[in-house]
């Protein structure tokens, strides 16, 4: 039953390497777990429909369907989706575009562990308070 309480995270990134790192960091929080991984936009959308995660980390540049388009589509499916963009350096215009499409926040690669933890804390702590 304790699993139910954990926040469910979905990682969207075309690089296995990045996905693994994110997964490790997220599992460290203790209160979040990675429930799904997608390596491109199409996968992300079908997986999101299935899993309805609490938070999605979104890479911007991916084959087939990029992060901006995916962000837009995910928010159409679920306007309350919390999408955090994980972008590489030098993509300010892309990140801004993703934010305009509705991404909640963003972090840059290479990220530090604490940054990911901070994202989870800020997102979920406040959400908890809000639901009180």
């Amino acid at each position: 039953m304790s699993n139910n309480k954990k926040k469910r995270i979905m990682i969207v990134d075309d690089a296995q390497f990045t996905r693994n790192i994110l997964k490790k960091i997220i599992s460290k929080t203790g209160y979040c777990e990675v429930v799904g991984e997608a390596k491109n936009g199409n996968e992300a959308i079908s997986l999101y429909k299935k899993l309805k995660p609490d938070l999605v980390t979104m890479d911007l540049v991916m084959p087939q369907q990029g992060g901006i388009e995916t962000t837009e589509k995910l928010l159409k499916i679920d306007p309350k989706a919390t999408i955090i963009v994980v972008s590489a350096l030098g993509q300010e215009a892309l990140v801004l575009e993703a934010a305009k499409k509705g991404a909640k926040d963003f972090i840059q690669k290479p990220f530090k562990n604490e940054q990911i933890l901070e994202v989870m804390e800020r997102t979920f702590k406040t959400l908890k308070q809000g639901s009180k």
Partner: protein
Amino acid sequence: MASKEDMELFLSETEDLIQKTEDEILKIEENPNDSSPIQELFFTFHTLKGIIAMAGFDNASKFCHHIETTLDHAKKNKISANKIGDFINVLLESLDMLRTLLNRVKKGDMTDIDNKFLIEVKESFEVLESTNDIAFIKPITSSKIDQIIAKGGTNFYKIYILIQTTCVFKKVRLFIIFRALNEIGQICSSNPVPEVLESGKSNLDFELYYISSKNPSEITQILEEILEIENKVITKLDPKDFKKIVSDLSATGKKVKQKALEEVSYEEEIIDGKVKDVSRIVDGFKDTSSKISSIKVNIEVLERLMNYFGELVITKNQINQKLVEKEDKKLKNFLDNMDKPFLDIQELLFRLKLIRVESTFNKYKRLVRDVARETGKKLKFILEGMDVEIDRRILEELNSPLVHLLRNAIYHGIEKSQERKIKNKDEIGILELKTYRSGGSIFIEVSDDGKGIEYDKIREIVIKKGLYSREEAMQLPKEVLNQLILLPNFTTLIDANMISGRGMGLAIVAENIKKLGGSLSIQSKKDIGTKFTLIVPFTRAILKAQLIKVSGDLFAIPTEHIEQIYIFNPSLVEYEGDEIYYKLNSHLFQIIQMEQYLDLVNQNYESSKSNSHSKIAILCKLSEENGVIFVVDEILQQMDIVVKPFKSDYADSQGFLGSTITGDGSICLVLDVLNILSLKIRENDFLNLIN
């Protein structure tokens, strides 16, 4: 699969197209209102798309397709002025990506452009095409504030926010903060003014004037969710105070706004190159040769042809020698008949190796533009003498020194507009790259009208390093200091900023030029500018040379440097200190005794011959004022020689261009007059100044 020849053609064709494209892109920048470059680009990318697809690079072809589509849009709906800078950037970056692909292909790596880049470029263009700004701050009138006060239920806030210094995408960060706040209220004003704030160019902290029905803890909570906020202070304001501040802000703000806008647009001038004069490239050479009347030949083939011909020249010289020895006049006459065609072929081959400096120098337009943008400087880049021809090899070797000098001139020479204004200089700096031929050498000048070398700082370093005492250092003239800057040990030890960066890497530049058999000199005047003059040989392959004998050994001097040859007259020798001079037409030229210079004192030879023979004085000049007399034992015939450069391990042997084989098959060293001369002159300056 395309054959090797096909691929070579593909590469050369694509490279040409890319270069052409780059020129067109820079034209947009020069004159954003002219749509013809865009039209031109559209067709070029269309062609590129086609041939790249034929060569089997699907992604690269799609890549070109995206660019083509965007250009098509741009053609139909004009790109807005504030986006043109980004537009040009994306285009240039795309070109670089194609260049990278070509370089890979050259090395035999046939990997296509990565899918990622394909999407990236597509999205970059989409972003460009969409119209949006982060306008979240809605100005509010004082009458509206009165209405809100009267209605009640609304709180008035001042929100101070400090963004973390590590924040990279400030504009996006602001967007997220503003969006979050506007979901539960309305930002009415800001300090600094919205225009500055929204441009993302302001400081890390700012104040927002904000109205909301929510209480401070709710606002705090909203901000808590956002990353990269270092500090925030939410202060509840009295409605009257709020009204006053907001109206004050909008009143003074109008002025500030005006100024801010000026500043912003001023920066954009540099960044986007909107103003016509900015970074405009003035090309001294107008290209008139658009007709195609040439074919492409692999440079390697040319090199081989040159080598074979060189062997032929040597063999011919050998036959000639034998015939002279045998006094076979009949055959010698036949051989002499070959001279003319030989000369003609040589001339032609020689021409084939030559290339206009334009081919490389044209690329500097882009370099200069990029560096000017990087440093936020306004300048005019003037290219002169683009039609001067030079040996391809030498031109290649010149590239990195020139890039270094050009970058230096922009980084450290040319001042920012404000500084130039204060100095009463034209706001727009001038950077000039001038090429001309004089004698057997090519002169390349890189000059700027910037702040000049800070000699006083160099003097300080000289003192600090203990090279000279303070008094001595203060006496040192610029010329000596210039030479000091070029010394490797001197420059690597000093801080770049100490002499406004001029020193760093200059030693390497000097070294490279020296390797080419050239020389580098500096002229600089405070606040007037700096001029670097590179003198490099025109070619190094086949030269006409005067054969000389020193202590019984054979040497060759390229005739292009020889001004006059005299019988050495001991009565014209004058002594001054340790130096010996030769007086010619009331002008004193320093004497270089080749025997001593080359360290060739041959005991046997000296006793048997030196006194019975009068020596020969050869006058070689570098320029009007600078010349020396070489004193040699004998002069022999003049002949065409093929210079074989030393293998790199020995390339450091100063004073020699290389070796050659003469008619009788003996090996002789070819003197590098230019190098000897410039070394001597340098040395002299030192000696004169120290004494």
